[in-house]
């Protein structure tokens, strides 16, 4: 099988390898940024949806609920396309950086924004699950100690809620790493998209002058192994955290 050897020789080409490694870095950075910003934005959404129940603030609850439900029930790709057209692009970012051309930076900014919006809606529901799991007695205890609602949230309820959802949030990082491959659709420069680009120009690197089926197996196989290593490590971490909770749950349920 000399075509197979030719395909494997691509992976020993330093140029190809660096190109792919940069793709991995973009995938990881993009996913982590999306989840971190998603936690911030998602927490706000979850708090508003859960606790804005008075007559004056009900409209905010309705808005947060609408946001969460709309994003949860439509595909990510639709939001990537919508952001490509409608998202305003600040002039200050319109230059080349991170080794990308200015067009690529623009695409990255817009598609990443869509990913963040989408991820926030999912994380909002995760945070809400954590908030609902906090026993009601905790609120009453906080009130009796003279905390106001903001104090109760910051010092009592949110820390417990976040501790409960650590495994779920880690799983969400896995999902976001996988979701970030949707950005390959609009030629954003991450691992999936770079693999696909390489396949298109494999005939330059493998020395046989044509794209063979073995190139598909080698290139996509390589990407699969990378994704698998990253995600399997994370899911093993999730299982470990689930088995060894840092603070044991109280034996008696209150509320």
């Amino acid at each position: 099988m000399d075509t197979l050897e030719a395909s494997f020789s691509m992976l020993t080409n330093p140029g190809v390898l660096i190109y792919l490694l940069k793709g991995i870095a973009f995938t990881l950075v993009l996913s982590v940024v999306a989840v971190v910003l998603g936690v911030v934005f998602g927490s706000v959404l979850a708090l508003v949806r859960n606790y804005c129940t008075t007559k004056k603030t009900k409209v905010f609850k309705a808005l947060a609920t609408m946001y969460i439900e709309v994003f949860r029930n439509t595909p990510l790709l639709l939001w990537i396309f919508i952001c490509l057209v409608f998202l305003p692009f600040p002039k200050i970012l319109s230059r080349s950086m991170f080794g990308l051309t200015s067009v690529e930076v623009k695409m990255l900014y817009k598609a990443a924004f869509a990913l963040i919006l989408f991820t926030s809606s999912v994380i909002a529901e995760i945070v809400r699950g954590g908030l609902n799991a906090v026993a009601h007695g905790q609120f009453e205890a906080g009130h009796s100690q003279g905390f106001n609602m903001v104090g109760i949230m910051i010092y009592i309820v949110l820390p417990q809620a976040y501790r409960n959802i650590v495994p779920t949030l880690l799983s969400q990082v896995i999902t976001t790493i996988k979701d970030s491959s949707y950005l390959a659709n609009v030629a954003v420069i991450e691992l999936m998209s770079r693999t696909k680009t390489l396949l298109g120009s494999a005939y330059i690197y493998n020395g046989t002058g044509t794209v063979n089926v073995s190139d598909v197996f080698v290139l996509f196989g390589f990407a699969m192994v990378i994704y698998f290593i990253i995600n399997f490590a994370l899911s093993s971490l999730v299982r470990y955290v689930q088995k060894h909770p840092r603070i044991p749950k109280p034996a008696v349920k209150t509320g």
Partner: protein
Amino acid sequence: MGGLFSADAWEKIWVFRDTFILGLANTGKMAAVALLLSFLLGLIFGLMATSGQKPLEHISRIYVELIQNTPLILQLCFLYYALAFSGNSIGILPTGMIALGIYHGAYMSEVVRAGIGAIPKGQFEAAASQGFGYIGEMYYVILPQSIKIILPPMVNQVVNLIKNTSCLYIIGGADLISLTYSFVTGASTGGAYGPAYLVSGLLFFVVCYPLSTLASYWENTLKLREQKTQVVPLTIEERG
């Protein structure tokens, strides 16, 4: 806003309404076949994972981990290009159905495994003591009890599956999102971004929202029931 408020753009949508109907039909067709395939794979591998036979459990584990830890788009591209470059292309829609079915089959298998795992051990022993074979035990005793645990996450998977039909775009797909995109960028039809995205988003929402609401409603009633009968959660923790 991309012609969201222009009558011309909306008229264009109406003239080319067949595009959206075709896209919805393709998405529906694809989702239906993929769903059937994923149910089948989920049941087979879920039962394998709970069979107690080590080799079968390992096979099921490898399938689930391999599929769940790699992106759907990558699997789809792999399948499509491997078939295309070896000269066995089977068309975009069938490729999408197979890839989607295999991907969500892994998730369904986990759902089935968790559902069966939540049934107390005594039920298996009781069924065995009454002389049921494996199929009878599953069909008459175990599955009817686990179906209420299985259903909510399964419906969530159905919603994800419908949303994931959009992955077909990367291989030049024929699903709703891909057709919408080629509609708004087409030479003779282009421009009506706002209305076109609104229509296709709305179509997805109308299908997915009732399903995901139903799933979370079921989940909540299940949780309430669990709180009332404290025996069930204890046995789940025991079985680990």
